[in-house]
């Protein structure tokens, strides 16, 4: 890119902000794919790939995608947790590519919990 004017500067700023959003730690939505051994063998990688593709295609804003270990409920893997800002986290179980697509479009983008795939709302706490 050549010499910038003020509008160009703003465009770069918006683009980079989006790409680097995950560095600031505060996003509108956070999706955690549980990638323990059980999760991986049950297909968590595919779930992750679908999410990465969805995020790319939808110009989705302010969403961060991360991984964590086994959620402790190995028989219901693959699992993912969706956490919207200010809302309790929702755990989804027995995921497939179709299910996670639906969860992404309904819950992450539109804020509607997909109750038929949800296991629980809220998280375990330390005693």
């Amino acid at each position, binding site marked *: 890119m050549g010499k910038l004017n003020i509008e160009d500067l703003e465009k770069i*700023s918006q683009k980079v902000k989006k790409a680097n959003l995950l560095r600031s730690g505060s996003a509108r939505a956070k999706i955690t794919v549980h990638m323990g051994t059980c999760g991986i063998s049950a297909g968590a990688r595919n779930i992750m790939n679908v999410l990465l593709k969805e995020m790319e295609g939808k110009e989705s804003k302010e969403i961060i995608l991360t991984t964590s270990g086994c959620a402790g409920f190995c028989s219901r893997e693959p699992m993912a947790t969706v956490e919207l800002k200010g809302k309790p986290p929702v755990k989804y179980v027995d995921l497939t590519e179709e299910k996670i697509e639906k969860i992404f479009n309904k819950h992450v983008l539109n804020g509607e919990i997909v109750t038929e795939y949800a296991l629980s709302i809220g998280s375990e706490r330390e005693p």
Partner: protein
Amino acid sequence: MAYRTHLMICTGTACVSCGSFDIKKELEQEIRKHGLEKEILVVTTGCQGFCAQGPVMVVQPDEIFYQKLTSEDIPELVEEHFLKGRPVKRLMFTPPGEETPVPNINEIGFFQKQRLIALRNKGLIDPEKIDDYIGRDGYKAIAKVLSTMTSEDVIKEIKTSGLRGRGGGGFPTGLKWEICSKSKDNPKYIICNADEGDPGAYMDRSIIESDPHSVIEGMLIGAKAIGAHQGYVYIRSEYPLAISRLEIAIRQASEYGLLGNDILGQGFDFNIEIKQGAGAFVCGEETSLIHSIEGVSPEPRQRPPFPAQSGLWGKPTNINNVETWANVPRIIIRGAEWFASIGTEKSKGTKVFSLVGKINNTGLVEVPMGITLKEIIYDIGGGIPGGKAFKGVQIGGPSGGVVPSSSLDLPVDYERLVEVGSMMGSGGMVVTDEDTCMVDIARYFLEFTNDESCGKCTSCRDGSAAMLEILTRISDGNGKEGDIELLEELGRAIKDASQCGLGQTLPNPVLSTIAHFRDEYEAHIKEKKCPAHVCKPLISYRIESEKCTGCKLCSRKCPANAITGEVKEPHVIDQSQCIKCGICYDVCKFNAVLVETGKS
């Protein structure tokens, strides 16, 4: 596809010297091995501040802080955390004296109490990518200035903010700009003073290494305010990484038309050139610095005229230090009132300090003005290693003075530090504990200033030599009655008679240690005693025969072969052979080695 994880690996000078570029290479290799290269991005950042724990890395968005990484740790880390999602506890930070590691960077005490303005982008951007800076509202301030503000508006904003020079003097920045802007002569020049020379201080280097564009943008705003079209960054050649990042930043800014002619299409021209200094301490003094850029011998000259009237090549020149420039864009974006709401009555905003010496968490910290010394040393610095007692902190390097432990509750700002005989200086904090000898500290700083005196003024050149001679005499056990008074008199005379800041401040470490630790000086002179057991001519080691088990550990470790004795028999140190290294004292498991000081 978008990345799901950014690995922010520190590539400031400290972490680089501990191998962070090797770690980066290993990370990228392992990430490729697991096929994660499209999901995980490795980002090199500037100094993240926690230098004692280097090389450090922050995993985003998880906010997990890894420290003391080695290349050998990387295969495990990539497989466990980035493939399987199980953060690796053993590579996390465990606060001194605690057992459980703290995974989240925001929950680590060192980071918690800091407030970032000058270092706002540290660890969050790649300093070699201008887009990263723009994505953090970079160059938005100069866009605002060029499109909506007059020079007077900018100066008024900086004056209202209360920003003062961060290089040491604390002169109000807005006022400095105003004086220069009103000078009739043309052209005018802008200089960034990056000739950071205090031992143990590296704030400016880190700012340039982690966020060079913030300095460039600050200079652009200053240039617009005073009407300058040419700027210089005067930086020591001992800072190769900072220089290289600054060169890259200037090139990228020029490509984007943020330097050069018709900046952002707003009709303003400004260029920056880098001038490398050879590392002479006196070049941090503004008139010497100007002489050095002009290519003549870097000696200071009498002021007035001040550089604002007659500076570089006799033209009006505005000099500010790196940290001051880095604050400017943020003040324009967030407003003067916001900045003025942070800090104390006369000292606004934050200050970056380098925390070194006898402290657990060595590193670079940015704190609001008015924070107490106690908070800096204990809450952020993690206290003194080995549970030793805090003795004092030398603030402001060779120009500053020591603040004793009785002033732990002192709010740190320009005025209060001067009141206790110290000064802000550029922000070096050297922490001392019970094992530090104050005569020795004073001697160390005098050695430095005596070496660095340019030699122009007799008072500074010969005065520092005379003070050093007396201090050396005292720590060698040859101090005389009246030496303390002589040091005080010399100190006052050097302050009065020297032309520049170097000479005017060099007696400070001596005068302040005398003021707060006079008894230590007296012990050296009258009793030939070094209470901290540091000055070698005044101490001796002896083995207590009742406690010695004859284990032979000390005699094996002694580098001078000064310890003799039969197995299971008490050992003896031959005083004529002993080099007083203290190894026997450190290795003895039965506390049989005693260190003694004094006439006996």
